[in-house]
């Protein structure tokens, strides 16, 4: 269904239920939708499962969501960073569960959810502790592990520009998980730096077609997750 242009982040994130699985874009700071995450914190939603490459850095964005006790579980590839103290503390205190997934399997499992694939055989992780208990199979002489899709109720994504239909373009390496998360969640909420008229984006360069987008809000001067005060 058509996307809605929202006036505020509060309007964009309204109605995210307790216990939701929430995909959050970004690879570290680039692409992390800090303003949407802060609006999510303001809703008071709890018991969330967060799917993201990292588990937050500094004191804002995902880090704040964890610090405020809203997250029961994190599915990610790289929680440990020099400034991941919010996650580290919650994890060591047993307040947050961690499902560690190799980064490419994380991306492919999200992509599988978006593409209606029920499972896939990946070579990544075969023979390691991250494949323990999983089905394995040798196909044409290569050993694979069976992995399943990761779906989400909501995706929070940061893009560069949207048109009024919800078509998206991204900027440089801030693209990262945005396009696959936008297409894997039941509801996709996007913050962009600019909303342009429909038809202003070249159809050849649209990265996320509007079909995947539900709410769009413009944040003219977004905070950097590492620097925001």
């Amino acid at each position, binding site marked *: *269904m*058509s996307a809605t242009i929202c006036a505020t982040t509060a309007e964009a994130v309204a109605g995210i239920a307790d216990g939701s699985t929430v995909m959050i874009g970004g690879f570290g700071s680039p692409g992390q939708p800090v303003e949407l995450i802060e609006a999510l914190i303001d809703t008071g939603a709890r018991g969330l499962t967060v799917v993201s490459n990292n588990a937050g850095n500094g004191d804002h964005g995902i880090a704040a969501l964890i610090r405020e006790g809203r997250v029961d579980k994190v599915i990610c590839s790289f929680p440990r960073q020099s400034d991941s103290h919010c996650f580290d503390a919650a994890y060591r205190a047993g307040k947050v569960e961690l499902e560690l997934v190799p980064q490419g399997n994380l991306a492919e499992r999200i992509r599988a959810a978006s593409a*209606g694939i029920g499972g896939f055989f990946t070579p990544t992780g075969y023979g390691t502790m991250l494949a323990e208990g999983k089905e394995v199979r040798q196909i044409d002489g290569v050993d694979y592990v069976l992995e399943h899709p990761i779906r989400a109720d909501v995706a929070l994504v940061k893009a560069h520009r949207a048109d009024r239909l919800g*078509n998206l373009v991204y900027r440089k390496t801030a693209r990262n998980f945005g396009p696959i998360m936008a297409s894997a969640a039941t509801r996709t909420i996007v913050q962009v730096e600019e909303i342009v008229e429909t038809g202003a984006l070249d*159809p*050849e360069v649209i990265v996320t077609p509007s*079909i995947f987008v539900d709410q769009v809000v413009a944040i003219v001067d977004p905070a950097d997750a590492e620097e925001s005060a």
Partner: protein
Amino acid sequence: MNADQPLTRDQMAEVVARDIPAGSYVNLGIGQPTKVANYLRPDQGVILHTENGMLGMGPEAHGDEVDHDLVNAGKIPVTQTPGCSFFHHADSFAMMRGGHLDVCVLGAYQVSATGDLANWHTGRPEDIPAVGGAMDLAVGAKRTAVLMSLLTRDGQSKLVEQCSYPLTGVGCVSRVYTDYATFLIEPDGVHVRETYGVDFADLQQMVGAVRLIDRTAA
């Protein structure tokens, strides 16, 4: 409409179009279902998908509009609309298979009472089979609708207990738009929403073995 006459092909397309919720993303397959586009109102804001890699497909192209790099699934030149986008085939079919389309409308040889669809192969050994995107479309949309004449040329119902033609998909069809009636396939059976030029009793006789549930008064 509970019409006095069986619907024409154009009227059938109009009924389908009227049923599509505003703001829907829709795939109209190839052939007769593409007529539905002619009856979509601009204020419905429906966005058309074509399997060969485009959202926001516009009407058929004519004259100077024809661009050999811009065709629909039937390989007929089409136009583009503002806000359209292009993508490759894996992305296009991921969009379908992943359940992102709201409505898909397909033709059919047969539909079963439990929503099985047969629309790709006659099953005759002398025919060269060709499936295209039919099986992907059948299972991919949130709602798969069929647009077809109710009867074959020799008067057999194409709504059947079990398909005799090779299947396209299992239990995938939820609505069937025909010249004599609009059917809703639901877990408890086949409901008749509207009839055209026949009454419910006539219709039940026409489809024979498939037990129908009358909702025309609703």
